[in-house]
């Protein structure tokens, strides 16, 4: 009899068919494990742990939470891009029947709160709002209609201030200052002597690129529900960063961290949007003032126009190359729009190091600039997507001039395991810790390029730079490829901690502080724990993101979990295993070091037939405790100093561009990724597919637009802001390089963020090959047609 209950009836049938059925505790017919090192759980395409809840509708998001006596909170937003509130009269709003509380800037701290990764810095409510949509007051009422009516009754006397929208305007010394601490923050990643580097060059090329305004455009409404019990607060919200949110709430509310309980709910599609966001802070103060639970649920318009968007980039680059294609110097200036409340000096900048095989001199300058536009900050692929949108065409220009093809020049220059990583220097500087030097743990860009080219049929389709693959009437087919790399977490994000509880019946609770946004972390972390502990995956359930229950974790950003959190999950499972083997050793009269656990059996390595079922061992009454033992495995720790993992990827795309309409369609994408060992191929394929769609959408159709006079966002909805849909989705061929990272758990690296990075540049190259003009993104039909027209009339050189 199987005494470990199957978790989900709907899944049990399928899982019984699999290799990893839970061993029967009493029956002894099952073969003993062979004792090989073959992985049992890591590498398997197991279904998502929460798939059953998701397909039945039982899955819960923050918007589904309802508490007794709960009020509805609504936020009043600035109509002006930059203004000062001279007076605010809330008497009429407060007097409206059904209104429980009106919150104004006077009710919140003078000081600013700050998001841990610099995505927001500002007051909870702003008496000097910095963009049209900035939060200035809030109401808690019995329902939405009363709350909205109350907002309309708030009277404000304004002093409208001169504003600035464009990044290049905002860096001018006489520009309006958006924040009290100036508009511009900058950092530099550098190595070697740039001047000397360029002197060695046989060829120097330059390129400048700009991209549009990408919205995270989330599917799913996020909400924040707050309930106070005395001086203790519980907050439910969809967040990727439950612990950093908890920590900052506690700091600004002046509460001990253990009195702020953040229950991180699944976010829906987040892509970097739902971290610590200002509406969560408003909800906390509003509920305290109202004396009742409050729920603020953001509308689609609020989610798209006020929370955050991707930093809008303008990137200039210069590359020095030897005649044989060796890079000797690379200089890049990356300007990015922080919007009104972003506070970043640098994005993730792994691509600074990507082309460092021959130790070129590098200087990558980053300028984060505040403007009176909607908040801007991290979105999936941050930094490396926008940097490579300049460096990839830069490399293409050099290749074209040298008569090399795009694969050859990249294969010659990409970094490999052991190469130095300079982009980490900024991080150490930020923490005032001396830079220990960092080297790359593993890297298989060569595999990504070569395998991708083979799967794509690159040789047959490539006709040369600026040349289409085939022309059929109006329809031009063209191909493009691009590379990128990205981080797999990082020491600066903080040290994850994980608890593995083994219950008396042998079932296991896995506790982590990670955020849940559909990336499959609940499943993949359990796969790591099951593999290390030697138990069937079905015996594990997880509790994540609840700060009152789970141990601290860094923000779930920068593809941190598979590699960095996974390392700690494995260590916690190992700790539990050690304790169980100590007990089993006594029971079996075998030294613990001679025992191992696999497939739910504890066995002697030398004599696999001498064994006891895992769940039988955990049930045995401990002779001193007089209950079965309770095993708590735990670990906290960080990545090793001096070694850093990066993920690598190459994307190959085929497009069809209609020269009469200017419309480009993405037909096919071949993506090969080096993410180390793949924990769950199906999960990773979905992550890559999502990356391609986000990256592809960014350059093909997505662009958030605001009114040039008022700064109000004009298209915060899916009708006017077009994300790619089922008809736009290209054929996808996704595969993985064979790499076992020496640091990651079982050789695992990250995947989710980087998946977006190469697609935009690859499409950019394909557009160039189709029409012979390098365009800024998005490649809208208007822009494409204009370029074709200019080229035909000789107005612009190819």
């Amino acid at each position, binding site marked *: 009899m199987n005494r470990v209950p199957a978790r989900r*009836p*709907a*899944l049990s049938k*399928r899982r019984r068919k699999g290799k990893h059925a839970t061993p029967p505790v009493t029956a002894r017919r099952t073969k003993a494990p062979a004792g090989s090192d073959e992985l049992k759980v890591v590498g398997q*395409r197991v*279904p*998502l742990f*929460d*798939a*059953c*809840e*998701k*397909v*039945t*509708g*039982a*899955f*819960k*998001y923050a*918007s*589904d939470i309802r508490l007794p006596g709960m009020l509805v909170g609504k936020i009043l937003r600035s109509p002006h891009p930059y203004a000062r509130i001279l007076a605010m009269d809330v008497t009429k709003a407060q007097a409206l029947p059904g209104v429980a509380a009106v919150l104004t800037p006077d009710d919140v701290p003078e000081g600013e709160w700050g998001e841990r990764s610099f995505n927001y810095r500002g007051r909870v409510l702003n008496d000097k709002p910095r963009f049209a949509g900035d939060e200035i007051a809030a109401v808690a009422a019995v329902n939405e209609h009363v709350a909205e009516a109350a907002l309309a009754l708030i009277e404000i006397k304004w002093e409208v201030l001169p504003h600035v929208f464009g990044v290049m305007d905002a860096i001018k010394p006489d520009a309006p200052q958006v924040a009290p601490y100036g508009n511009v923050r900058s950092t530099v990643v550098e190595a070697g002597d740039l001047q000397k580097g360029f002197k060695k060059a046989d060829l120097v090329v330059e390129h400048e690129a700009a991209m549009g305004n990408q919205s995270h*455009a*989330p*599917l*799913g*409404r996020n909400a924040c529900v707050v309930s106070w019990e005395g001086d203790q607060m519980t907050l439910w919200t969809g967040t990727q960063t439950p612990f950093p949110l908890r920590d900052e709430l506690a700091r600004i509310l002046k509460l001990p961290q253990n009195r702020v309980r953040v229950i991180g709910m*699944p*976010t*829906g*599609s*987040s*892509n970097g949007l739902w971290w610590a966001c200002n509406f969560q802070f408003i909800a906390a103060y509003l509920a305290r003032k109202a004396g009742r639970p409050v729920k603020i649920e953001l*509308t*689609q318009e609020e989610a798209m126009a006020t929370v955050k968007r991707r930093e809008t980039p303008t990137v200039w680059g210069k590359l020095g190359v030897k005649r044989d294609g060796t890079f000797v110097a690379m200089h890049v200036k990356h300007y990015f729009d922080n919007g009104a409340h972003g506070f970043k000096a640098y994005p993730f900048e792994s691509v600074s190091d990507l082309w460092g095989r021959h130790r070129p001199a590098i200087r990558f300058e980053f300028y984060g600039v505040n403007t009176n536009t909607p908040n801007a900050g991290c979105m999936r692929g941050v930094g490396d997507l926008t940097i490579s949108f300049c460096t990839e065409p830069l490399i293409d220009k050099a290749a074209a001039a040298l008569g090399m093809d795009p694969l050859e020049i990249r294969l010659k220059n990409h970094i490999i395991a052991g190469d130095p990583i300079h982009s980490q220097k900024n991080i150490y500087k930020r923490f005032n810790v001396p830079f220990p030097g960092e080297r790359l743990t593993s890297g298989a860009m060569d595999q990504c390029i070569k395998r991708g080219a083979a799967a794509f049929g690159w040789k047959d389709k490539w006709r040369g730079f600026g040349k289409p693959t085939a022309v059929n009437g109006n329809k031009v087919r063209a191909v493009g490829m691009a590379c990128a790399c990205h981080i797999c977490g990082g020491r600066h994000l903080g040290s994850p901690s994980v608890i593995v509880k083994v219950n008396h019946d042998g079932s296991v609770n896995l506790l982590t502080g990670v955020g849940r*946004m*559909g*990336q*499959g972390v609940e499943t993949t972390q359990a796969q790591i724990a099951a593999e290390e502990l030697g138990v069937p995956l079905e015996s594990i359930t997880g509790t994540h993101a609840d700060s009152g229950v789970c141990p601290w974790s860094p923000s779930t950003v920068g593809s941190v979990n598979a590699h960095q959190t996974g390392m700690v999950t494995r260590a916690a499972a190992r700790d539990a295993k050690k304790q169980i083997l100590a007990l089993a050793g006594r029971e079996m009269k075998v030294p613990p070091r001679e025992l191992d656990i696999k497939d739910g059996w504890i066995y002697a390595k030398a004599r696999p037939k001498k064994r006891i079922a895992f769940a039988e061992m955990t049930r045995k009454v401990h002779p001193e405790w007089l209950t079965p033992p309770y095993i708590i495995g735990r670990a906290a720790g960080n990545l090793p100093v001096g070694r850093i993992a990066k993920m690598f990827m190459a994307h190959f795309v085929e497009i069809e561009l209609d020269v009469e309409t200017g419309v480009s369609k993405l037909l096919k994408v071949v993506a090969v990724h080096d993410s180390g060992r793949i924990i769950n191929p*199906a*999960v990773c*394929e*979905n*992550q890559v*597919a*999502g*990356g*391609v*769609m*986000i990256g592809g959408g960014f350059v093909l159709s997505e662009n958030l637009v605001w009114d040039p006079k008022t700064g109000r966002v004009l298209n915060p*909805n*899916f*009708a006017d802001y077009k*994300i*790619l*849909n*089922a*008809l736009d*989705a290209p054929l*996808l061929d996704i595969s993985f390089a064979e790499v076992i990272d020496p640091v990651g758990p079982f050789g695992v690296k990250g995947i989710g963020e980087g998946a977006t990075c190469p697609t935009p540049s690859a499409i950019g190259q394909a557009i160039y090959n189709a029409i012979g003009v390098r365009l800024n993104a998005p490649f809208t039909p208007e822009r494409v047609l204009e370029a074709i027209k200019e080229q035909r009339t000789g107005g612009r050189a190819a």
Partner: protein
Amino acid sequence: MKQTINLSVNGKDWPLEVEPHMALSECLREDLALTGVRISCNQGHCGACTVLLDGEPVNSCLTLAVDAVGKQITTIEGLARDGKLDPLQQAFIDHHGLQCGYCTPGMILSAKALLEENPHPTEPEIRESLAGNLCRCGSYQKIIQSIQAAGGETGGGA
């Protein structure tokens, strides 16, 4: 002024008192606690709130509750029968036709309507039928594979 209506949801009748302007999506979520009806854009663009009205997929955010009277309403909660998942639901699990899960109920219900009408759809037909259901996680490939697999299963079993 509230109206007294009867809604037939997932095979059961529910007496309800609703405002005449109440959207069906809100009514199902708030009054019947069927939170598998997801609301995202609330403007009929994203398809997350898709339910079946007499087997036809509709955006329940654009449908008035009072207009659903006399029709058979199916939400994602009504798809499993006698504790057994619909083949489509099982296929979405097995083939990873989902990530964050927000679009999933709408996707499955749109696919359900398609398969009822066309048990063996081609890939272009599947894509066409999902054009009103957005997935920001970009899981379309595996969603399509899930529907193809379920199409094969229901076709073979029928």
